[in-house]
């Protein structure tokens, strides 16, 4: 079970890394163009191109999936370590998913994620080793998710 607790965060890491590329961006980014038909070219611009992070409910469920799988496993196996890891991951991923809605800043979101992961680890862990595993288990997939999402706005139109 201990090996599983170490491996699951890595599987979650891969899942969060792949997810934004495997589903259409429309599930989590809203955007569009507003153009000015009377633009003459002398000043200003012909259009405004905008994008905004806006996760759909399906997307949020998919992001939280690793944590949900752990919590469902807990129901069947009644192993508290699965529950604690599931909760730690749930809080961290929820923070990683929702924070960019309010502020799309990589450093601020990373710090917020770190605080949430550490708090979850401290509250849910039994000893120092357990706390580190729980904090790490939530932080790693959350961080990769934030990194991938923040980069989804790097392009030109």
């Amino acid at each position: 079970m201990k090996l599983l607790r170490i491996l699951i965060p890595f599987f979650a890491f891969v899942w969060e890394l792949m997810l934004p590329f495997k589903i259409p961006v429309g599930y989590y980014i809203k955007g569009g163009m507003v153009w000015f038909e009377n633009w003459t070219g002398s000043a200003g611009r012909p259009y405004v191109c905008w994008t905004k992070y806006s996760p759909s409910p399906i997307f949020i469920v998919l992001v939280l999936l690793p944590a949900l799988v752990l919590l469902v496993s807990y129901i069947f196996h009644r192993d508290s370590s699965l529950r604690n890891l599931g909760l730690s991951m749930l809080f961290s991923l929820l923070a990683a998913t929702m924070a960019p809605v309010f502020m799309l800043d990589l450093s601020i979101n990373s710090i917020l994620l770190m605080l949430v992961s550490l708090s979850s680890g401290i509250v849910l862990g039994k000893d120092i080793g357990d706390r580190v595993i729980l904090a790490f288990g939530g932080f790693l997939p959350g961080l990769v998710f934030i990194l991938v999402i923040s980069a989804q706005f790097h392009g030109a139109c």
Partner: protein
Amino acid sequence: MNRLSTRMLVVFFAVLVLSSFAGALSLVPPKGHGGSVTPAEAISVAQMYLQWASSNIPNFEDWKNAKLSRPVAYYFPNGTRSAYEFTVLVNGKPDGFILVAAQRYMPPVLEFGKGEAPSRRLGRIGTARIKGFLRERHKLLYYGALSYSVELGNGKAMDIYGRQVPVPKTTKLALSPRQVASAWRAFDTDTGISDVGVLSTSTLTKVIPNVPVWTEDSYWTYTRGVGDLGGASTSYPNNVGPKADPWNIWDGCTPIAAAQIIAYHEHPEIYENGYYTQEYKEYMTSLVDILHHTMGTFDTKDKKGWTWWCGYPGSDACDGIESFASEYQRLKDQGIVSWSLKNNYDAQPTCTLGLCWEFGGYINEDDVIEEVNSYRPALLQLHNGGSAADGQGPYGDHSVVITGYVGNSNTVDYLVIHSGWDMYDHYLTWGNWGSHTHLVKIIPEKR
């Protein structure tokens, strides 16, 4: 207390009077360095500068045996002569210009570069836009860096973008009298130009000549524009060329910018024949359509015309440029395009590990100078770009072509860009953009 106040007042006035003397003295031009410059003196300055530039500035070696045209005079708004412009002729063909001051309180050489002479550009635009335009009738104005314009009367002028602008009532030139005097001395003494430091205050305008300019302005002018239309039921590659595209009417700024660079390396002669020709339209729309495809530019309603920066795990700007040649050859084999293909293209972004998409990038003046001096227009990926000097913009997250710069031999004050939004040059102040802005150097490699 009263005596102390009186003494302080006396000291204060003494300082005031002495400092005004000092100020006045510093404004007196050195002996022999006042007054205006005759055309003959201006020719002599231009000839000396020609020789100096040919042996001191990279890529100006061909000015060694160049000749100068007759001077064209520019004026201040008050009617005083401000400058003489000389077109540099290499083997009888224009290869840049030198702008020499017409007043000795200005630096001897005001601007120079390899681009089109400003008077020629003003003449071209003036003929197209001003009814009854005649160089003899309309005075050319110059009252500071990049202020070239044609006087229209009633306090109005037409600038180098063809816009009507107000003529300022007063102009103020921020010049150091000491530096100006030293610079004139270097020309007046018969020893030639030895003090390069003095001359570094001159503004250098370096523009790669004949970089094709293009926009897909059908987007906002609809059927009146130069680009192709969108929303057709045809599928790629049957749309390649002026035919309507299956995607949005706006093809995307990155394919448009890259198409201008590739056209410059492949077939500049098509542009030199004029950008209004059918062949030019066919060629440019073909390049844009192919690059739209190879770059994986978005067509969804959320991201119309959006192209990823380099380093994206799927198709992106660099992938599109690097796979352009093979895709073009494939279409040529199918008879969809007919122009020859000379080069493969290597795209080199200035980003850590090439991952612009993840980490953004950086931009250095040295890179811009090197690319322009090597006659390689570069792709500028603007992040949160500001407005150009003429008010176009703000550009936001936009791709443009760097065709030149204004600065001196190691600093850049303005970038000369093709914005992709119209068919003119624009000047973007150095640094007027966000921190992730970067270059993509596009290196042609002979096939």
